[in-house]
Each structure stands twice: as C-alpha cells, then as structure tokens.
C-alpha cells in the first residue's frame, strides 16, 4: 500500500521518466487494441475506395458459426442401403444441403468440420469457417503440448546446469543459443533438417535403423507437420525458460539444502520438498509466459508451412495476418485478434486461479 500512495503523490520525475515508455505503449499497444475491437464490428478493408460500414456481429458470425446435420444413408429402389466397395454405407453429398438449398437456409455456405456414425445415420458438424476452426484447434493442441513439455524440459536443463562444475558456462551458452538466433533463421534451418528427401533428420533415422526407416516428408505430411513444428518450437525457446528456472533455483537458500542433507533426505525428497516449493512463483510465471507465447505462434508457420498441408498447421495468429494483410480484410483480421484476446485472457485467468496461494 505504501508504494501505491508514493506513486500517486508528488513524484514528478518518476512519471517523467516513465512517460516515453508509457507513450509508446499507448500508441503501439493500447490504441491498436481498441482499434481492433472497433474494427471487428465494421467491414474495414486495408485499402478500398468504399466507405467503412458498421456490420454488427457479422464478422463474428461468419467466423464462429456452426451447425449440425444428420443424414440417412442412400437407399436403392428396394429400400436397401447402398454401400460402397468397402461395405460402408453411402450418404448424399453434403453440398446438396449446404449450397443454396432453400430447405436449409441456416446451413448455407457451411462446410464439414467433423462427422461421426450413429447407427445407420451419419452426423456432421458443420462450420461456417472450417479453416478458422482448424486454426483454433491446432493452436490449442500446440499450447497443450508445448506448455508442459517445454516447461519441464527447461526445468530439467536448469537443474543440470545449476551445478558448480568446470566449464558449466559453456553448456549454459549452448542451451541458450537458439533463443538468441532469430526465429526466422531457426525456422529456415529446420526446414532443411525436416526435408523429405535428404534432410538431416531422415538421414540420421535411416542410418540409426540401418536403412529400415523410410524417409518421411515431415512438413509435407498432414500427420507429421504440426508435430514437427511443435518439436522445433520447444527446442528453440527451451533455453529462455531454462534461464528463468535457473534464476528461481538460485534464490533458494543453500541452508535449506544443507539442512535437508543433514536430515538425510534423498535427492528426490530434496527436489520434492525443498526445490519445488521454492520454485512456486517461478513455475506460475513460466507457465503463463509459455502459454501466451505459444498462442502467438506465427513465424514458424509463415516460414515453414504457410498453414499447409491441408490446414494441418493453420494457427490463429497466422490466420489473422493472412486475412488482415494477405487478403486485405482488416475487419476479419481484427475479429480474429479479439477472439484470440478473449481466449488468452480467460486461460490466463483460469491459470491464475488454479495456481493461487491456498490459505
């Protein structure tokens, strides 16, 4: 409380020093943020002679609209289900219902997102913007994998290099190096590593298995593309979080470790009851930072896959940029940004609540 009264009372020099920073933040972060919210309710284009119009929730509806339809299998004249070569029943083409069908006005323009079998019938979940839905899903998968794995690996590395050994600084430097290199350069290099023909990864795997491994086009295959990007992203930023963990480790008082040793605690007990409680605040910080960074996934996608193949690596931010600048649809890009903001804010709040100090 004392600090806040100090801030508001006569501290003109302090405010003066803060002014340039605050000013830049207002101009480049806070104003654009409110701009994005306002523009998401209009049809603003990047450049256009047409006037901007207020369109209400239309942008949100066209991004988030979903629908559902259950189709019965096709039957021949005698009422038997028509089956294809593999014996699966055939269904009428979805486009008969989603394209200019007056009986299903709500489904017009929607596409299949996913589907499942329920008895003889097949239920389809339709989305107005399947690409955006894929982007949201891919981003969530990315966050769910990267946050625990990257945080855990970084902690492991931090524990390894938090020792007084000769030459330990060399290892610290090596682990930290990928963080210093531009992500664009790293992505370009990993494109060569993941190359489908003569990539380093394929070569290593095939020599390890004495040629039994058949080369995979890591970035060209929808099944492996997102995983490849996840692996590379974890490797790239793990050093940054390692340093944060390391700073946390070094705030833990050595006397606690000495006491634990005297008590005869094992290595695991020392970690569980001394190190981990001491890292509590660091853990919250690392988790939230990784989550936010992971939601902003863009550069790797832009350099390595451009969202392909078959939308398997579309992400929310990539879609925002692609629409806002690539397709000159600033209102669409703004809408995606606002949706991303809501997602990240709610997840951060949930994380804060889950990791709160329990009394």
């Amino acid at each position, binding site marked *: 409380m004392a600090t806040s009264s100090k801030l508001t009372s006569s501290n003109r020099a302090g405010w003066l020093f803060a002014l340039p920073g605050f000013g830049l933040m207002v101009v480049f972060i806070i104003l654009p943020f409110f701009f994005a919210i306002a523009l998401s309710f209009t049809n603003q284009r990047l450049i256009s002679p047409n006037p901007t119009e207020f369109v209400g929730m239309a942008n949100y509806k066209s991004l988030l609209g979903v629908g559902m339809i259950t189709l019965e299998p096709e039957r021949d004249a005698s009422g038997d289900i028509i089956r294809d070569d593999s014996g699966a029943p055939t269904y009428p083409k979805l486009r008969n219902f989603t394209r200019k069908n007056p009986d299903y006005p709500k489904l017009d323009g929607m596409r299949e997102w996913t589907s499942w079998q329920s008895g003889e019938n097949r239920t389809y979940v339709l989305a107005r913007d399947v690409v955006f839905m894929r982007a949201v899903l891919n981003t969530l998968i990315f966050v769910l994998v990267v946050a625990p794995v990257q945080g855990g690996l970084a902690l492991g590395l931090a524990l390894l290099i938090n020792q007084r050994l000769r030459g330990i600084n060399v290892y610290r430097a090596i682990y930290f190096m990928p963080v210093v290199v531009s992500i664009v350069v790293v992505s370009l290099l990993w494109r060569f590593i993941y190359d489908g023909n003569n990539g380093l990864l394929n070569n290593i795997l095939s020599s390890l298995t004495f040629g039994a491994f058949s080369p995979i086009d890591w970035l*060209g295959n929808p099944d492996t593309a997102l995983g490849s990007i996840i692996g590379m992203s974890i490797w790239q930023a793990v050093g940054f979080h390692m340093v944060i963990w390391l700073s946390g480790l070094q705030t833990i008082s050595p006397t606690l470790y000495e006491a634990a040793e005297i008590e005869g605690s094992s290595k695991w007990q020392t970690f569980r009851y001394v190190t981990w409680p001491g890292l509590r605040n660091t853990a919250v910080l690392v988790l939230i930072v990784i989550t936010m960074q992971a939601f902003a996934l863009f550069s790797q996608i832009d350099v390595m896959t451009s969202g392909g193949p078959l939308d398997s690596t579309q992400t929310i931010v990539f879609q925002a940029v692609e629409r806002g600048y690539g397709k000159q649809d600033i209102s669409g890009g703004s809408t995606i940004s606002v949706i991303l903001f809501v997602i990240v804010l709610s997840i951060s709040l949930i994380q804060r609540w889950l990791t709160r100090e329990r009394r």
Partner: protein
Amino acid sequence: MKLFTLSAGAMALTAGMSGAAFAQTELTMWYHGAGNEVESQIINQIVSDFNASQSDWSVTLESFPQAAYNDSVTAGALAGNLPDILDVDGPNMPNWAWSGYMQPLQIDEAKIANFLPGTKGIWDGKLYSIGLWDAAVALVTRQSIIDELGLRTPTLEQPWTQDEFMAALDAAKASGKYDFALDLGTAWTGEWFPYAFSPLLQSFGGDIIDRSSYKSAEGALNGDAANAWGNWWQGLFANGYAQATQDGADRDTGFNTGKYAFSWNGNWAALGTLAAYDDALFLPAPDLGNGPKIGAASWQFGVSASSEHPDGASAFIEFALQDKYLAAFSNGIGLIPATPAAAAMTENYKEGGPLHGFFALSQAQGVLRPVTPGYVVQAKVFEKAAADIANGADVADTLDAAVDEIEADIEKNGGYGH
C-alpha cells in the same frame, strides 16, 4: 512506417535541391529491382538518358527489394506519399487503380500497338500501365528425352493433347530414370501458383472467376470443367508424376541435374537450362481441351494518382518504351522483349535465337490473370485450393469453398467497381 516517412522526406529534400539547380521539374520513381545489379544498371541508364534528353523533367529513382515492394506501395498510399512513377506487377494493377493509387497513362495507344498483349495493363477501358517485357512459361525438356521416350515433338500449331501429355508422363515414369516425371515447381509458393497453374484450369475450360461479370465464380471455379481440372491435377500427384511438396533446391537445379524429365518453368530460368543442356527444348503448353494457355503479364510502369505531373511521368514511361531499352532488359536479365522489333535486337529472342520460342508462346497462348481488383484475394484463394487438392483434399468440396470465399470477398467489397 517511420523509416518510410524518413526516406520520403529525404527524397523530397533532394527533389527541392536539385530542382533549384537545374530548373527541371523533379519526378520521383519507385522500382522493385533493388539487389539485382544488372537490372539496376539498366534502369539507371534509362533514367539518366531521359534526364539528359530534355530540360523539363528530372527523374530520381528509388529501388526497393521485390519482396518488400508491394508493402511499401501500400504503406506509401496510406500515408499519402507515393512517387510520381510506380512499377506494378500486372495482375495487381486493377487493385491499385481501383484503390486510387494510380491514374491512366497519357500515352498514345498507337505507340504501343505492336506490344505483346500481356504487357498492356488495361482497367476500366483505360491504359494504366505498360510493360517493357513479358514473361512466359513453357514445358521444358530435352530433345534426347523426347527421342528416347519415342514422343512426338509438339509444336505451337499442334501442341500435345491431354492424352499425349499424360502418355509422355507415363513413358517418363515407366523409364525409371527420373525421380519424378514432371517438375511443376510447387516449391514456389505465392504468385507462381495462380500464374503457372490457373492457365491449366483455363485450358480445361474453367477459370478463377466468371469473366463476363467478374461478380461470381460459381460455375467457373466449381463447374464440370473445373472439377475435371481438379481431378486431373490431383492425379498428377496421387499417381506419382509430380510432388505436392517440393524442396526449393530441387526446383532450382532438379531438372538441370536430371531428376525430372519435364519441367513447367518460366523463361527467366531458361538461360540456366541452356547452359546445362545444349539440346534443351521449350515446348508449348499442352491443350487440355479448351486450347493451350499460359499466364501473361509481368512488371509494368504506371503513374501514381497523387502525381502532380502526370504528363512528365507519362513522358518518362514513353521514353523508356524504346526498343533499345526493351532489348537491354531482355539481354540483361532474360525477359521477353515487348515488341518484335526489340526481340530482333536481342541475342536470345531473335529469329533463330535459343529462346525465340518463348516470344511466340507469349504471343499465341498468353492469357491475363483475371483483370479485377479482387484478383489479389482470388489469387490467394486459388493458391490454397490448388495446394489442398494436390495434397489430397476432396476436389468438389475444395472448389466449392474457394467459390464461396471469392464471392463473399466480392460482396464485402461492393462488387469491386465492376
């Protein structure tokens, strides 16, 4: 943006200074060729020749790297800082004209009557831009490959039919001597897709958009012809004739090192192929049912809408249209000169020159990409559809989705002024 205003300010400053010294009215010009030494030399030569040839105008040139050029123009337009003379990639011109960056040229149409059709940027019935060169795509192969596979050599009058083309790919695949029969250049994402592959769709009878109204893509991009194209296109990859994802290095050197039997590539890569093989052949596009087609239009010159001296800007562009400059660009960086007279002055495109075929291709088969401000978006939609189909997406659904996206965009833009 900051940097931009700074450089624009510096330009205005130099403009004021030299204007006072020479009593010539200063004109500014932007060009996309920064980083290419030969190209810079030629354009600088034209500028200094023009400045010396008359006493009314003095042009100063600023070059940008190609990758940043379009963004710079957009930023310049938003900030109201465009130069007098711009260069513009052909298919983008209608978008810039419609958005109000450009104004029509004051050049007599008779002066450009013999220019290749792809070099003329016409929007809304007016000439907005004119190119000193064009580019063309050919099916590149070698005489020895044709002979070995026992194929007929197609000609401009009698190109391969779809069956002959597929038989050629089959023969190349069956020979087992090549990694893949056909190098389509899928490594080149971006404008290459609509430039190189939408003519194949047109050769089937489809198109990116219905060009009679430019308001709808229904039937053009998802009709029977387009679906036939999509199935054929998907088959090229599914049946192992070509790669849906290609390594960039394979695209650059693969054909020249014998990995592919055929390569779908532009004239700009032809000099390298000629250096690798002395029996290189540049064949016309196959006729896939609706006549053989290749993409047309490359970079062109135009005048910005904010220019206070459009007469001077047009005078410069007219000056640059001399055959000797057309020939210089062609000799320097391998482009197709815009006129037959200039072609005759070049080493490669003159009658009997090694690349003469490209000039004929451009003249006979060149089709402009859709001339509409919406092309910028349509190109991206088409690229995604072509890539998705190549990767195995359902053809009809993908094309339907592309149609929906294109039509939604046209509607959002109030019809793009058509």
